[in-house]
């Protein structure tokens, strides 16, 4: 510590200290850490109900939502980060594309049920091995604390994927806060890739 205090022995030469071993140890440990992270975050749980199968991150928990066959969400965040599957009767096509007609009707009903609903776009796609239609939208959601506690609503971003199967319309709803969607925050790291994973593993009768 000081020149007055006697050193116990002469300092060793630098060449005796294989510094690369320390760096190699760190590298190996971090690779193990990254593999564990990958294994944990990539793990999913698959649930089924009435012929519908849905996969979601293992860290999520099942939720109870009205009129849903299956629902799950990230309980670490008070709002957002959730997925659900609904089954409703498909409207009669009357010569129109049944999927587009169903999507239009669904979008209207969503607009009635969600505060500040605004559709952002629609597109044709495939899901559950069938032709599908996606409706992307935003809305305002009150936090669990509610307006009484003085909290302001949260801007949410959602994607509904619609598939017609037989007489039924199946809707996979994926929701995340707009902040998480934009920032890809640690709370919800990769919403787009997660959405793709959920949709690709979705099955309907």
């Amino acid at each position: 510590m000081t020149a007055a205090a006697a050193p116990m022995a002469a300092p060793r030469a630098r060449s005796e200290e294989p510094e690369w071993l320390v760096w190699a140890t760190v590298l190996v440990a971090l690779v193990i850490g990254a593999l564990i992270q990958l294994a944990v975050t990539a793990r999913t749980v698959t649930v089924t109900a009435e012929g519908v199968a849905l996969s979601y991150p293992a860290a999520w928990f099942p939720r109870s939502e009205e009129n849903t066959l299956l629902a799950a969400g990230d309980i670490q965040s008070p709002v957002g980060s959730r997925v659900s599957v609904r089954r409703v009767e498909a409207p009669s096509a009357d010569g129109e594309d049944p999927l587009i007609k169903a999507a239009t009707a669904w979008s209207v009903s969503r607009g009635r049920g969600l505060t500040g609903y605004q559709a952002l776009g629609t597109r044709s796609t495939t899901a559950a091995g069938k032709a599908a239609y996606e409706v992307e939208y935003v809305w305002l959601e009150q936090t669990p604390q509610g307006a009484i506690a003085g909290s302001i609503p949260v801007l949410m971003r959602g994607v509904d994927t619609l598939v017609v199967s037989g007489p039924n319309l199946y809707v996979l709803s994926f929701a995340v806060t707009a902040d998480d969607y934009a920032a890809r925050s640690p709370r919800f790291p990769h919403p787009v890739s997660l959405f793709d994973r959920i949709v690709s593993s979705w099955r309907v009768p």
Partner: protein
Amino acid sequence: MVQRSSATERRSATLPIILEIGAIVLFAAVVAVIGSLVGVRPQGAGLMLVSLLLAIVPAAIWLVAFYRLDAVEPEPKRYVFGVFLLGALLAGALGEPLIRNLFQVQTWVQDGLLTGLAGSIFVVGIIEQFLIYAAVRYTIFNATEYDSEVDGIVYGAAAGLGYATMVNIRYVLESGGVDLAAGVMQVSINALALAAFAGIMGYFLGRAKFESMGRWWLPGGLMLSAVLNGVLSFILEQLPFLGGLTYNPWYGLVGATIIAAAVFAAVFTLIRRANARLIASGGAA
């Protein structure tokens, strides 16, 4: 003469650390009791200011203790403070971004016991301990002022406290200010734990410079301190919930105090024995 000066140096290095542990516990207890008795809860900028003060107090206590006890013999204050600052800078610039943004440990480490332990060791522990190692190894380690094995513990603890201070500041800023009682406990636990784990790394660094310890000594020391860091940090996070669903930060503080006291007692004992063996074999200068 060698034994006498070594004993003096051990005392001058040990006393600030003992004082640090005791003073932090006292500080946390006093603030927590005052916070619960007075019942005044600062808000807004006042809360942030008080919280930031709480975050840096543990480091300030140690630095003051170190400087006050420096009268025994002159110490390279600027090096100690420099390593402290470097520990804080490495935490802010590398450690916390790696742990929280790249590995996003906070999103998956609660997934289960084994996952939590593995994440604590192979991500949090290894990154924290390597940066503490780097703060000492690539700076003061090669300086002439680093001239005894105890210096490894002193500089290691300085780097660890610097790291802890940055962790505490981030904790306060992210929380938008903290509750006095719970907040002071958390910053105290962070400071005690990180200083203790850094002391272990410092022990390995201390002996590495003056003895022929073999090529696996430093990697082994780094891995051991990372494992202890990971396991004990994981336990410390669970301790406040020991009583069931009720959160009691006192359990965490008691645990951190025991860990810090045990770690520093162990590393100083090991250093003393190593020195005694060296003197007995006639290896002293």
